[in-house]
């Protein structure tokens, strides 16, 4: 008999197809399930497994309400801020995520923001859409060259290291700060700063790849933006909560920051629209993992975890072991 699965979120067609083929699956093809809808579906379907994403908050109360026949909850994301891990652990629920598979595409997106912000690509595209028709003086509308610049990376995990690798192709000097220094084979010549603040004055470009949580909440604020050199470029494709947006808007408005590229915001999707009124910021709608290849890979990875646990094997990506 096939394992019984509830998919609480709309998924790309290839993932939906596989869920349908390999599982006795209750799918969300029309709309995503909210918490009550998910709990009802899991109960009715007597599900062995739950496939969900960060729009469902599995807090202690939600986990307590999950029926005992649910053996595994697989989040289709690398982040797990939306899950109360101690509560899941206490209940004996296996929880998995989808690391690694989104590293490259997220690093690509961060690098696209770096290039777009430095080279003002979204402003240029905005000039083109009404038809261009106007010559620029040789000193007008200039961006800054990204190649050869000092690139500061906060958070040198898989994604941070993938961004560093891309930066090296542009002859950038890589600086990084993290809770621990990396071994030389992963560091690849990057300069480590134990103190994040000491790194900031040396960053022509700063990109964030740190996890969320109380330690990093608002780590970019008026003081830390002030430590960046005048004319720096700032990119965040990690977590909106890392940034005090009031301070960011002030730094963009004063020109202390040349430009910013943002894929994540404190509130999503109803982000602070004052950002949208600024010309020197490029905004994308949290699309770090937004390629067909990666979204399929994430979905498949979540299904792989579910299949393993339902077959009595260990999970591939357990949040704890």
């Amino acid at each position, binding site marked *: 008999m096939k394992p019984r699965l509830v998919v609480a*979120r*709309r*998924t*790309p*067609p290839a993932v939906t197809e596989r869920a349908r083929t390999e599982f006795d699956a209750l799918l969300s093809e029309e709309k995503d399930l909210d918490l009550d809808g998910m709990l009802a579906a899991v109960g009715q379907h007597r599900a062995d497994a739950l496939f969900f994403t960060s*729009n469902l908050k599995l807090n202690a109360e939600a986990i307590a309400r999950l029926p005992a026949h649910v053996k595994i909850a697989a989040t289709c994301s690398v982040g797990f801020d939306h899950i109360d891990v101690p509560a899941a652990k206490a209940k004996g629920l296996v929880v998995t995520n989808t690391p690694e598979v989104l590293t*490259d*595409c997220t*690093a*690509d*997106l961060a*690098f*696209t923001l770096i*290039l*777009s912000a*430095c*080279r*003002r*690509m*979204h402003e*240029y*595209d905005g*000039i*083109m*859409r009404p*038809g*261009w*028709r*106007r*010559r*620029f*003086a*040789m*000193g*007008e*509308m*200039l*961006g*800054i*060259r*990204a*190649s050869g610049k000092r690139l500061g990376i906060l958070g040198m995990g898989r994604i941070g290291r993938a961004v560093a690798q*891309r930066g*090296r*192709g*542009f002859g950038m000097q890589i600086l990084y700060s993290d809770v621990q220094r990396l071994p030389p084979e992963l560091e690849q010549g990057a300069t480590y700063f134990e103190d994040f603040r000491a790194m900031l004055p040396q960053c022509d470009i700063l990109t964030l790849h740190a996890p969320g949580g109380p330690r990093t909440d608002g780590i970019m604020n008026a003081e830390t933006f002030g430590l960046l050199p005048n004319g720096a470029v700032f990119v965040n494709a990690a977590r909106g909560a890392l940034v005090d947006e009031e301070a960011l808007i002030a730094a963009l408005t004063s020109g202390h920051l040349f430009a910013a590229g943002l894929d994540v915001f404190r509130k999503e*999707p109803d*982000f602070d*629209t004052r950002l*949208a009124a600024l010309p020197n910021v*490029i*905004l*994308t*709608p949290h*699309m770090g993992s*937004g*390629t*067909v290849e*990666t*979204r399929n890979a994430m979905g498949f990875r979540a299904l792989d975890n579910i299949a393993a646990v339902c077959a009595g094997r260990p999970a591939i990506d357990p949040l704890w072991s």
Partner: protein
Amino acid sequence: MGKPVLLVTRQFPEAVEARAARDYDARLNTKDQLYGPAEIIRLSAGADAILCASTEKLDAATIAALPASVKVIGTFSVGLDHVDLPAAKARGLPVCNTPDVLSVATAEISMGLILAAARRFGEGERMVRAGRWIGWKATELLGAQITGKRLGIFGMGRIGRELAKMARGFSMEIHYRNRTRLDPALEQGAIFHGSDESFLPVCDVLSLNAPGNEATRKWLNAARIALLPKGAVVVNTGRGMVVDDAALIAALRSGHVAFAGLDVFDGEPKLNPAYLGLDNAVLLPHLGSATVETRNAMGFLALDGIDAILAGRNPPNRVV
């Protein structure tokens, strides 16, 4: 003796104009008006040198009519399509350009366009800025992955090779089409193709970095586009004339070419208006070299050439 007189035909970056004014009695164009041949001839009366850009057409008649005092022309460009070089040579008038210094900035725009087009930055940006972002969906606005894809570079000169270096950081497999095969030291593992038929079918991403001339006019036409894999990404930062616009627009509409990023256009700034409504194209107004660092370097290099000629030396960027 006073400073030599320099006619500056366009508005150039601040640092470049400051240097021109320091070293020369500089006739600046503070309103950035476009000068025709008659104005150039009139304004260069008594000038020792001219610093121009590719917007000034220096044809044979104009060069012949320049006052005898003009001893050198420095152009703020790599391209020399706007200068009649045989006429300059016949007159014994040295011309200096600005090679090399814009390769990196232009390659950066190529890589930026590859990424921005494939990751649907134009659409995403417009959606967020207009307040039309209503939530994350696993299936919405999905782009194409770039890491690990095959990149085909048409024209493996300095800019193409800089682009290859950048793309290797994204683990791309580099293929190229060029008149001649490069030396292995320059090739760096890139795969040479001797025919369009072998080259185009491997281009998940095609970047045009070739010069514009009769051999490359409308090179990317319907027949060649059909040889690309379905869903390919096309980027052009070389010359607009290399693309058959009608054919590319048709392919973007059908989805055979999934995404395009274009910095140059045939007949620019009057580009084919059908591009303007295409959501799967990122469009830039020919700003491949538009960084402060690069534009300053271009201006300084052109001025270096002028300085050298007036001092009786022979600069490396002298083309005539």
